[in-house]
C-alpha cells in the first residue's frame, strides 16, 4: 500500500462515508422524534427499547421498496407452490394419461380437453400438473446448486481470507484457473463428464461454476474485514483467532455473498434450462422440472410453441423474482446507495 493514495483504494474508506451518512440519518431521526425532556447526562438519552440489528434496519428499508416486495412476493409464491403443488396438481405429472391420443405425426401433443386444461405433453402427461409440480424440482435445482456453490465458496473463501500466505495463494490460483473458463462452458463440461447424467450432475455442474465466484467474493470482503478496526479490536481483546474469523470476519463479510446467492438462484434455474437445451440435462423426466421441460420442448417449438412458452414464462417470472430481490438487497446493503 502506498501512503499517498490509500484513500483512493482502501475498501475501508467506504466505511466513513457510509458512517457519515448514517450518522446524519441518525441525527435527523433524533431531531425529529426526540421530545422527551428531563435531565440529560453527557452521553445523551438512549431509549429503552430493544436494539435493532443491522439486518433488522435493512429490512425496514427494504419493506418500503416496491421492487423488493415484488421480488419477494414472486419468490414466496414460488416456494409455496413448490411445496403444495403435489396437492394442487390435478393429475400425477408422471403418468401417461393421454398416451393413447399421442401419435407422433397426426397428434404429437394432445391439446386441451376436459380435465386437461393445457393439454398434455408428448407422452400424454398432463401439462398443467407438470408445470405445477415442476416448480418443486426447479426450486430444488436452484436451491441445491446455490447451496453447494455457496458451501464450496464459503469454505475456500474463508480459508483464503482467514489464513493469508500460501494457503491463500494456492486457493486463489485454483480459483483463477476455474474463473478463466467461461462459466457456461465449465458447467457444460462438468455435466458432460457425468457418466450417468441426472438431476444431481446438473446441480453439481451449476454449483461448481459458482464456487470460485463465491470464494473470491468472500475472500475479498474477508480481507477488507481483516484490516478493519473492529477485528483489530477483537485481537487486542485477546479473542481467539478462530472466534475472530467466525464471529467477526465471516458474518460481516457475508453480505455481498448472500446477495450474490439470490442472484445465483436465478441464474442456476436459467443455466439448468440452458444445459437441458444443450442436451445435458437430467434425462429422467418423470419428475418435471421447468428447465428440462423447456429444453425438451424445442423439438416441438415450431408447431406447438405453448409447450415451450409455459415453462419459459415460469422460469422468467421466477428468475425475475429472485433477481429483483437480489438487486434490491444489494442496494439496501450497500451503504453507498443509502440516502
Amino acid at each position: 500500500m502506498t501512503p499517498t493514495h490509500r484513500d483512493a483504494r482502501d475498501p475501508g474508506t467506504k466505511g466513513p462515508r457510509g458512517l457519515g451518512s448514517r450518522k446524519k440519518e441518525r441525527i435527523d431521526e433524533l431531531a425529529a422524534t426526540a421530545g422527551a425532556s428531563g435531565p440529560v447526562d453527557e452521553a445523551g438519552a438512549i431509549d429503552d427499547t430493544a436494539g435493532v440489528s443491522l439486518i433488522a434496519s435493512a429490512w425496514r428499508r427494504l419493506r418500503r421498496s416496491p421492487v423488493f416486495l415484488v421480488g419477494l412476493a414472486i419468490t414466496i409464491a414460488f416456494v409455496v407452490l413448490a411445496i403444495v403443488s403435489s396437492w394442487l396438481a390435478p393429475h400425477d405429472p408422471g403418468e401417461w394419461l393421454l398416451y393413447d391420443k399421442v401419435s407422433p405425426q397426426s397428434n404429437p401433443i394432445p391439446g386441451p380437453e376436459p380435465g386437461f386444461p393445457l393439454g398434455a405433453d408428448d407422452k400424454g402427461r398432463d401439462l398443467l400438473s407438470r408445470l405445477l409440480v415442476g416448480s418443486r424440482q426447479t426450486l430444488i435445482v436452484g436451491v441445491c446448486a446455490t447451496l453447494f456453490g455457496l458451501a464450496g465458496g464459503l469454505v475456500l473463501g474463508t480459508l483464503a481470507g482467514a489464513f493469508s500466505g500460501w494457503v491463500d495463494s494456492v486457493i486463489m490460483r485454483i480459483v483463477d484457473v476455474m474463473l478463466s473458463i467461461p462459466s457456461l462452458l465449465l458447467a457444460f463440461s462438468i455435466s458432460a463428464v457425468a457418466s450417468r447424467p441426472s438431476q444431481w450432475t446438473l446441480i453439481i455442474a451449476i454449483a461448481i461454476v459458482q464456487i470460485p465466484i463465491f470464494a473470491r467474493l468472500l475472500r475479498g470482503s474477508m480481507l477488507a474485514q481483516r484490516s478493519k478496526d473492529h477485528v483489530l479490536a477483537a485481537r487486542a481483546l485477546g479473542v481467539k483467532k478462530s472466534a475472530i474469523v467466525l464471529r467477526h470476519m465471516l458474518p460481516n463479510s457475508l453480505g455481498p455473498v448472500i446477495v450474490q446467492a439470490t442472484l445465483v438462484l436465478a441464474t442456476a434455474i436459467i443455466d439448468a434450462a440452458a444445459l437441458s437445451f444443450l442436451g445435458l440435462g437430467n434425462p429422467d423426466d418423470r419428475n418435471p422440472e421447468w428447465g428440462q421441460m423447456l429444453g425438451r420442448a424445442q423439438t416441438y417449438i415450431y408447431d406447438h410453441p405453448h409447450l415451450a412458452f409455459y415453462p419459459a414464462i415460469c422460469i422468467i417470472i421466477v428468475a425475475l423474482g429472485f433477481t429483483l430481490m437480489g438487486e434490491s438487497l444489494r442496494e439496501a446493503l450497500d451503504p453507498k446507495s443509502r440516502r
Partner: protein
Amino acid sequence: AESERSDDGSGGGSGGEGGDGTFTFGAAGAPEVFDPFYASDGETFRITRQIFEGLVEVKPGSAEIGPGLATEWEPNEDGTKWTFTLRDGVTFSDGEEMNAEAICANFERMADQNETAQAGPAEYWAYSMEGFGEDSLYRSCEATDDMTVDLTIARPTSKFPALLSLSSFAMQSPKALEEGNANEVTKQGEGFSYPENAQNPVGTGPYTFEKYDTANKTVTLKRNDDYWGEKAKNAEIVFKIIPDESTRRQELEADSINGYDLPNPVDWKGLEDGGNQVEVRPAFNILYMGLNPERNEKLQDKKVREAIGLALDREGMVKAQLPEGAVAASQFMPDTVQGYNSELQPTERDVEKAKSLLKEAGAEDLELTFAYPSEVTRPYMPNPQKIHEALTNNLEEVGITVKAVTKPWNGGYLDGVDNGQFDAWLLGWTGDYDSADNFIGTFFGNLESNDFQTSATDFGEQLSQEIKEADQTVDEAERTAMYEELNKKIAEEYIPGLPISHSPPAIVVNEDVEGLVASPLTAEEFSTVTVGGK
C-alpha cells in the same frame, strides 16, 4: 475427346439441357472427407454420391442394384470371380478416361492401405471386405481388356456384387488419386490427417466439386456439363450444414433451403401443412432390443427371452412413438431385403403368457439393466428415450424390474453395448445394401464377438454357422430360402434379441422442388431435382 473443363460452364448462361437453378439442401453435419473411401457417414456420402459413381449403383427409389459404371456383370460358377463390362464413353471430370485400367487402379488403391488407414479411415473396406491382405475378401482386379474387368474374391458371398454399390467404393480419377497422394493417411494426435485427394474429389458423377467453405459451413457442387448420362437439372447444389434440427426446419420455412434430410417425425405434419413435401422412404432399417445372456444368466433361458418378447407392446409403441409408415418388426430385417420371411408376424403382446413363462423359468423377480442412448437420434430410433420408456412400462407390467441406464451415444453407450455392460439395450441398423447378410450376418455372424454374446448360449455356434452357409450359397433362390428359414428360426427358436420395429426415415423438400426420388437407403441423387421448375 473432351478437353479440360472451362470455367464458363459454371455461370450457367448457356449450360446444357439443365436449368440454371440452385438446389440448396440442409445437411445435418459436416462432411468428413471428400474421398468417400475414407468416409463412413451419411452426410459425406450424400455429397460424394453426387460426384462419384460406382461399378454398380442402387436403382433410384429402391434398394436393388443396377448398372453403374459397369453395364453388366457375371460371376463364374463358384461365385469367386466376377466379370464386369464397363460403360463406354465415360470420363472423369478431370478428363481422365474411365476404363478397366482406371477401375483396377481404384481397387488396388483401396486394397493397399497403410496401417493407419486400416485401423480407422478405411473402415468400410475393413468391414465389408473383411479386412486387408490375406484376410480380405478381395483378391485381385484384372483388366482383361480396355472395357472389361475381372474381380476375384476369396470366397463366394451373398454380399457380392451389392456391396460394390457402397458409396465408399465409388470410382475416382486415377490421376487425381495419384496426384493427390490418395493413400497417404497419417495419424496426427488423436485424429487422422488426409492427403490432398480428400479435398479434391474427381469422379464421373453428374456434379463436380466446387468448394467447401468451412468458415461458412457450406459445400458447393457444380453441374458436370460433360456427364455421360442425362445432365443434372440444377446448375448447382449447395449443402448448408445446419446441425440443429429445428434450425433446419426454420430455414426451410424461411425458404433459405429447399430441403433437408431426416425431419423429425413430429414435424412431418406441420411441414406438410406448410406446403412442403415430406417424402417418406421405405423403411430399410431395424430397431431391436438386444439381450445379453452372458451378463444376466437368467436370459440364457429361452423362456425368459420369449417372455420379454411377449411383454412388449410393439404396436402401441410404433403407433405412439414412431412416424407413420413404421411397422412392428417380426424379424431382424426389413421386408425389402431378399430373404425376408413374410410368414412371420410380429409377436403379439401377451402379458399373461409372459408372466407364466417367467414363472416357469423361475424368473419372476427378473431384474433387467436396460439401456438407451442419449445425445442421438437415428432413423430407426427417432427418440430413444421415449421408446425406452414405453418399453420399460411394458416390461414392468409383467413384473420385470427395470433398471434404466442411459449414456451418451458416443460417451459410453456404444462402448457399453460392445463390452456387454447392459442386460438389455436398444440399438438398430440401417442397411448398407440389399443383402440379408448385411443384417443378420452383422448381428450374429461372428460368434466370438457380437453384441448379443451368442457365445454364451447353446444356439450361438449353430446360428453363426447357418449364417455363413447361407451367405456362401451361390444360387440366389436357394440362398433366399435359406435366409427365410433362418429368419424363422431366429424369431421362434433362438430369440437372441427382440426385433422391435422398422421406422421409415423421411426427407423433406419445399413445394418448389420436383423430381426428387426418395431412396430406402437414403441414397438420393439430386441430379433429377428441379427447383421452381427451373
